[in-house]
């Protein structure tokens, strides 16, 4: 595989950093080259965040060029829209339906679109959208903190995913604190069962 680009987006504090690390760790174990470009600092206070995860034999910069994303893992609906320019036509999108309403909406300065509207916009780029209320699944399993695991579980099921669920689970075991491994794996497994 020459290059596989994963756009991971959401809200600061949702766990995108660990999720991208788990994918990169899996790639390294498979002797691939990796680049993960991350947002730290100010935007982690509930701002919008994007991780660029690039794996394969030929990866260069830390940023996925626009229109070169092979897949998107969106932890929040509106955040998927903000970065939809990064994916290729027909790319797979794993989408959490659960909104985090920004304070701009709360303060009456903006409105939040309906999920149908979000989906319609994304469909301009691709029909391959797998969505569910992943936050709800996480809350019911390991707590909202395990949202990233549910998303990774969903990721493992897309047809173009370069890794098997077992590959990713091994990295979870390597990277997550031992006492949380079981809960995280349970959340991951729930994610794998989400149907198209």
């Amino acid at each position: 595989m020459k290059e596989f680009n994963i756009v991971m987006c959401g809200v600061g504090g949702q766990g995108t950093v660990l999720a991208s690390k788990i994918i990169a760790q899996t790639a390294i174990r498979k002797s691939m080259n990796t680049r993960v470009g991350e947002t730290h600092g100010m935007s982690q206070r509930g701002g919008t965040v994007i991780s660029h995860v690039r794996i394969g034999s030929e990866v260069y910069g830390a940023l996925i060029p626009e229109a070169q994303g092979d897949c998107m893992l969106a932890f929040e609906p509106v955040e998927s829209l903000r970065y939809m320019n990064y994916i290729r036509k027909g790319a797979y999108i794993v989408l959490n339906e659960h909104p985090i309403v920004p304070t701009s909406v709360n303060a009456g300065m903006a409105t939040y679109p309906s999920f149908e509207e979000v989906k319609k916009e994304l469909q301009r780029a691709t029909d391959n959208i797998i969505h569910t209320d992943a936050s709800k699944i996480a809350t019911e399993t390991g707590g909202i903190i395990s949202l990233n695991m549910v998303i990774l579980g969903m990721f493992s099921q897309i047809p173009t995913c370069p890794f098997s669920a077992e590959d990713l689970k091994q990295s979870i075991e390597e990277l997550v604190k031992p006492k949380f491994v079981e809960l995280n794996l349970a959340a991951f497994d729930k994610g794998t069962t989400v149907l198209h």
Partner: protein
Amino acid sequence: MLLDNKPGLVELLMGNQAVVRGALEAGVGVACTYPGTPASEIGDTFAKYSIAANSYYWEYATNEKVAFETALAGSWSNLRSIVSMKHVGINVAADALLSMTYGGSVAGLVLAVGDDPSCFSSQNEQDSRNYARFGMFPCMEPSSPQETKDMVKDAFALSESFRLPVMIRQTTRSAHCSGNVEYGPIPEQRNEVVFTKDKLHKAVLPSHAYQLHPDLIARFQSLRDFICDSPWTRMSLKGPFGIIANGLTGNYVKESLHYENLEDISFLHLGITYPLPEKSLLTFIQHCDTVLVVEELDPITEETLKRIAFDNNVQVKIHGKDVLPSTYEFNTRIIHDAIMNTLPKTPTISFKGESLPEASKMPPRFPVLCPGCPHRSTFYAIRKADPKGIYPSDIGCYTLGIQPPLNAVDTCVCMGASIGVGSALAHFNKENVFATIGDSTFFHTGLPALVNALWNKSNVNIILVDNSITAMTGQQPNPSCGLNSVFEKIETPIYPEKIAEAMGVQFIRVINPLKIKESIEVFKEAAAFKDGPSFIVSRAPCCMLKGFQKKTPVSIDTKACIGCKICTSKFSCPALIWDETTKHPIVDHDLCNGCEACIEVCPSGAIVEGKEQ
């Protein structure tokens, strides 16, 4: 693990972690920092491994100047030393930095700096290479975490060869980029500690500096020649169109050439970006007829290249800032377009993705103060106490108080300026002035300004928003929070109120900002006090603090709620969400910390203590 002495092991490291690994492989003996994004993880990684490694002296210093001086003392004591900071930190350290180069360093001295093109988390886009030019020392720029590690290791040796500090310049993009890093060996031995007395080189009195300046110029000249032969100067002479790029931006060039299948392009990839390898540059322009210079921010390479072309009468077309911006970080699309336009060539690939939805579908999501953040309550109370005041502020999480609806930050320039600017504003203006400053920022550069305010009798109201940690940059300890540089509890925190008392400040109070009504009264009292500065420590822990105990979320008594919206539209805690259908707020139980500050905000008593479920 980062400390594993297993040459050949490949691990995923972030650029900043790779800096630490490189230093360990160079046998570093002293490491220090003042935190700042995007360089913070360098210090945090040194802190994390300091006890386990047991091979280097480590500290979080109170500011970058002190940090730099600590590293300088390390170098003078024959220990390889590294100091890390963000780009604007060099402004603070510059006084030491720009003079020590005259006498020079002893053991390798490395300055790891994080620049921030695009201002992801900074107040400006200054290009640190200018300091390398200003101080006449080398600057190295890695293009991947692997290179970062290898470069840092080389930087110590380079520093020793020329007795100059060596700057490792990462940008937000490289500092926070992770990738595969193959480890080399970590030496078992450290240098022996020796301080050799040598007044000429270690005390830059005017007469010494006068004598040393020619020596600095001479060292710099030989450095220039050395760089032409360095393996970090990577030149490939092919076709007549050439590209020169710095560290990270070279990736965008390689990627563009790769996507376009362009093989006949000459390429000079600079790892050492200051001073420039002038002989190599001359060879390059003599070979090419057109050259594109790819450098983020300032046109330093471009200007040098033009001088060399002029001095040597070389006929070559040099493009740079005529086709590329002097602002913001680059990416592959920007570089690809510039290459296609200057070659010129019709592109075979488009980096234009699907158009974004209209703005109304994407409500903006600014960073906000966390739910339960004590800063929100402090700002709310200040505005309640005096809505007409002037609010100079400073740099930290609390700068977020600038956003509506809080609107409690009017100015922010650099660390410490809240008190410096604020005490002077109080001299000139009739409004009451409320200067807010964080605990870490207070120790960084607020202290001299406090002395000044007191000495010059300003009526500024200084509000030290003390959340017991350096929060914005990722939870580093500071002198008042009761932890040392490796996060162990200490018996003797240095309390700001005691400092103010010892100085002779007349009005000193310590408040709990989560008690909003009491806070408002104290701020009113402070504003009425007109006999010099008032000093109020507004103290409650940051919600992200390790070990922070969340309490039961508040509840809404919907019968009592009058639908006034003050809690969501004026106080704006993200844990309270307005429900348009019921016209009452809803409490988000995942977000609410149970700080209960909002209880006092509600005019009708509709927000009440939550009950354990």
